[in-house]
């Protein structure tokens, strides 16, 4: 439940009571957002944190203090350690507005969100976007059929409802895929097969980055350990799989793949796909921040300096929404951007900011070497990002296929926005989340130009569907008083 400040309750700070604007607004309560809030919450600073989930923790620490599982320890130590962070976050002074949907963030500091069927508005001098990552779309033939889900959704079901789908196939690549399969197995779930699409050459290419990875041996061992655990359970693992296709007309009935030039197929009614995560772009794009195409991670990310500050100086991006860095770096970046914004607000000096952030800045830099290794090793196959088969659906909302887009391209839709106007690809409720990257890469291919020259969709609010009734009722939220004690 969302709670609000009690107007007129005891308040020692005259400055705060006269203000109608928050000093800092943080969007997202994952590791980056929570750490930023803890660091930013000082006596004279009003901080508000908005999150769409009823409990803090983000994706990684989802429900960490209220797991439906009898023994949440099976989800692993990386999950359990989130409880410490969520506890500190709960105790900090930030105003935490939970279970609300932020659907507009303007570069003028205006934030609009849906709360129990009404629209609320607040304003902030500084904004921290910490909206995390989303799974990379997996546009292969049949990926839109019922029965096909992302491995991340399998994990959400696990963390939120303790739900396991037996005899499912997991396919793709990346450490999160192995973690989810391992979590499934630990809970007694039966996994039909893990179809690994990490190509052989990735292992070779990534070796050049291995020296960097060795600086973070703990993390490296973690990845190898998971695969060993899956192997030991007796689960079928197929390596170096290619040409993935979902079988079935109306509903997923299985998965076909090739290995060493031979075609195989496996029947299954539940198929979970995963090939890594990419920044959740909708908010940073809708804010009009400058973005770059990252060749290492094959995704768009906002242009940020080492303090996480974007092309608009009062807007910072922390955590995976600024480029995939993982939970520990995200937490460190949360603290770094918060310190920088305290400097911007004149609460602390630049020197104090530098010294307080020193350790975190060093940590984040050191992790980048390991990230290069991971990104190289789990680089998703071109054929799984840039679909060639004419019938493969690219835009799920408007059901537009590769062939539809090719036709629109030939009619003049040469950049994403023209193609969108021409074909409606990207016009649906997901605001291009599921097709934006595919469209950028497809157009780059067809134009034979770098993705950076092709660009991305111009995005607009609302970032989530809002009903007319919600929009028609409009109230303001202001930092009128100190935070009241939070009730769990």
């Amino acid at each position, binding site marked *: 439940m969302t709670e609000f400040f009690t107007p007129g309750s005891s308040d020692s700070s005259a400055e705060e009571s006269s203000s109608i604007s928050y000093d800092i607004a943080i969007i997202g309560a994952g590791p980056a957002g929570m750490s930023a809030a803890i660091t930013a919450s000082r006596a004279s600073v009003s901080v508000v944190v908005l999150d769409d989930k009823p409990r803090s923790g983000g994706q990684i620490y989802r429900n960490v203090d209220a797991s439906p599982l009898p023994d949440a320890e099976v989800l692993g130590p990386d999950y359990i350690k989130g409880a410490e962070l969520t506890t500190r976050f709960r105790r900090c002074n930030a105003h935490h507005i939970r279970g609300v949907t932020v659907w507009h963030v303007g570069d003028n500091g205006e934030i609009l969100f849906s709360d129990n069927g009404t629209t609320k508005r607040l304003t902030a001098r500084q904004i921290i976007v910490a909206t995390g990552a989303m799974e990379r779309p997996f546009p292969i033939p049949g990926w839109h059929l019922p029965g096909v889900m992302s491995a991340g959704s399998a994990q959400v079901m696990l963390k939120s409802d303790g739900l396991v789908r037996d005899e499912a196939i997991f396919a793709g690549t990346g450490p999160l895929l192995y973690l989810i399969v391992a979590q499934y197995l630990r809970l007694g779930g039966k996994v039909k097969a893990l179809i690994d699409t990490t190509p052989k050459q990735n292992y070779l290419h990534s070796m050049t980055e291995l020296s960097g990875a060795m600086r973070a041996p703990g993390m490296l061992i973690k990845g190898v350990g998971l695969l060993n655990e899956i192997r030991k359970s007796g689960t079928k693992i197929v390596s170096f799989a290619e040409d993935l296709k979902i079988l079935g007309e109306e509903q997923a009935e299985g998965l076909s793949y090739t290995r060493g030039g031979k075609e195989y197929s496996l029947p299954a009614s539940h198929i979970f796909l995963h090939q890594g995560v990419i920044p959740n772009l909708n908010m940073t794009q809708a804010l009009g921040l400058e973005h770059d195409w990252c060749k290492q991670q094959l995704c768009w990310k906002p242009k940020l300096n080492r303090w996480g500050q974007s092309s608009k100086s009062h807007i910072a991006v922390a955590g995976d929404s600024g480029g995939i860095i993982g939970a520990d770096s995200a937490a460190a970046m949360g603290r770094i951007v918060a310190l920088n914004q305290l400097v911007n607000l004149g609460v602390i000096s630049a020197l104090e900011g530098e010294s307080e952030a020193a350790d975190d800045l060093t940590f984040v830099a050191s992790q980048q070497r390991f990230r290069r290794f991971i990104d190289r090793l789990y680089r998703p196959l071109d054929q799984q990002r840039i679909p060639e088969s004419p019938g493969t659906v690219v835009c799920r909302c408007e059901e537009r296929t590769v062939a539809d887009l090719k036709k629109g391209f030939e009619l003049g839709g040469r950049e994403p926005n023209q193609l969108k106007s021409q074909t409606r690809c990207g016009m649906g409720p997901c605001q291009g989340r599921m097709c934006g990257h595919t469209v950028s890469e497809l157009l780059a291919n067809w134009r034979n130009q770098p993705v950076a020259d092709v660009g991305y969709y111009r995005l607009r609010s609302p970032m989530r569907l809002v*009903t*007319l009734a919600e*929009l028609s009722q409009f109230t303001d939220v202001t930092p009128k008083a100190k935070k009241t004690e939070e009730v769990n």
Partner: protein
Amino acid sequence: MSVNTTSQKLSSDVLVIGGGIQGASTAYHLAQRGVSVTVLEKDTVSRHASGVNAGGVRLLGRNIAEVELSKAAMQRWQQLDDELDADTGFRRRSLINIAADENDLDSLRSREQQMHSLGYFHEVMLDKRELLERLPHVADHCVGGVVSEQDGYAIPFHSTQAFRIAAERLGACFCEGELVEQIRKVGDSWLVDTKTQQYQAEHLVNCAGAWGDLISVMIGDNVPMSYSAPMLMITARMPHFAGPVVGAVSRPLSFKQFENGTVLIGGGAKGFADRANNTTRLDYSLMANGARNAIEFFPIMKTACINRMWSGLEAYMPDNLPVLGKSMRAEKAYHAFAFSAHGFQLGPVIGEVMADLITQGETRFDLEPLRVNRYERKTL
């Protein structure tokens, strides 16, 4: 697509500035008559108002100065897809303006009298029962309305592209990413400089939309034009509840439901335009008013989900009428801009008017009320 040589691009009979629907239609009509024409567009064709407007194809409620043009355009729309061999998305659906009270009915009655006296009979008043028959979901308090049967909507981006592609088929050139920096008349030629090129033509047409005043000044005509950002929103698909396009006599309400079930809601509320940066900002409190209005007139829309909101850059004259016709200060220069948020429907006929002015020196329409210098002071 035709193959055009560079020299053909750089030197043509007519140079059109602005790749919106008016520019594309002008190019089409000229190319049809064998005139060589080049269109300069600073961004991409139909990037601004022509690509993102509400797509209303409206004859109902037109200012008297525009009725003849609008009627001619409406005839063209009925078979435009065949003419251009394209899909503009035009659907004839009729347009109803709803009367919410007796005052609204009074305005409708006096409008009817005026239209009838001028010999126009395309606007027909509806009583409450007739209104309900056509719009069963309209709120109880609505007392009547007025309908124009030929009206409807089209898909703006597709319509503008349709003119462009038809024009290109006939040999017209479209140059995108060409921002005009300077215009000069040297002898009988217009010389137009962009950052990288110089274009030359005998005739010059200003179809620059929200940037029309800047081009107009370069030609030599001052205009008191302003620009703004009318806002729109579109819902996710919902069950069909409205066939006709809907407006209101005295409230900022306007919407249409497309065949796919999505509902486009306008109403004229304006956001903030930043012309220099090609961007607009939305005013969400005004959007909230629009939402309230829609619900008040159509309670079924309460649960409609808004999928996108946007606004485009629009040019306005103080009298909300376009600038249309010959330049007053320069020979062989022509204007068609500042359509004040209702130029889309006129597109098919504006190209014809421009082509007539250029190839015949005159048009069958009375453009006197739309002349570029209508705001110049006669006496000091």
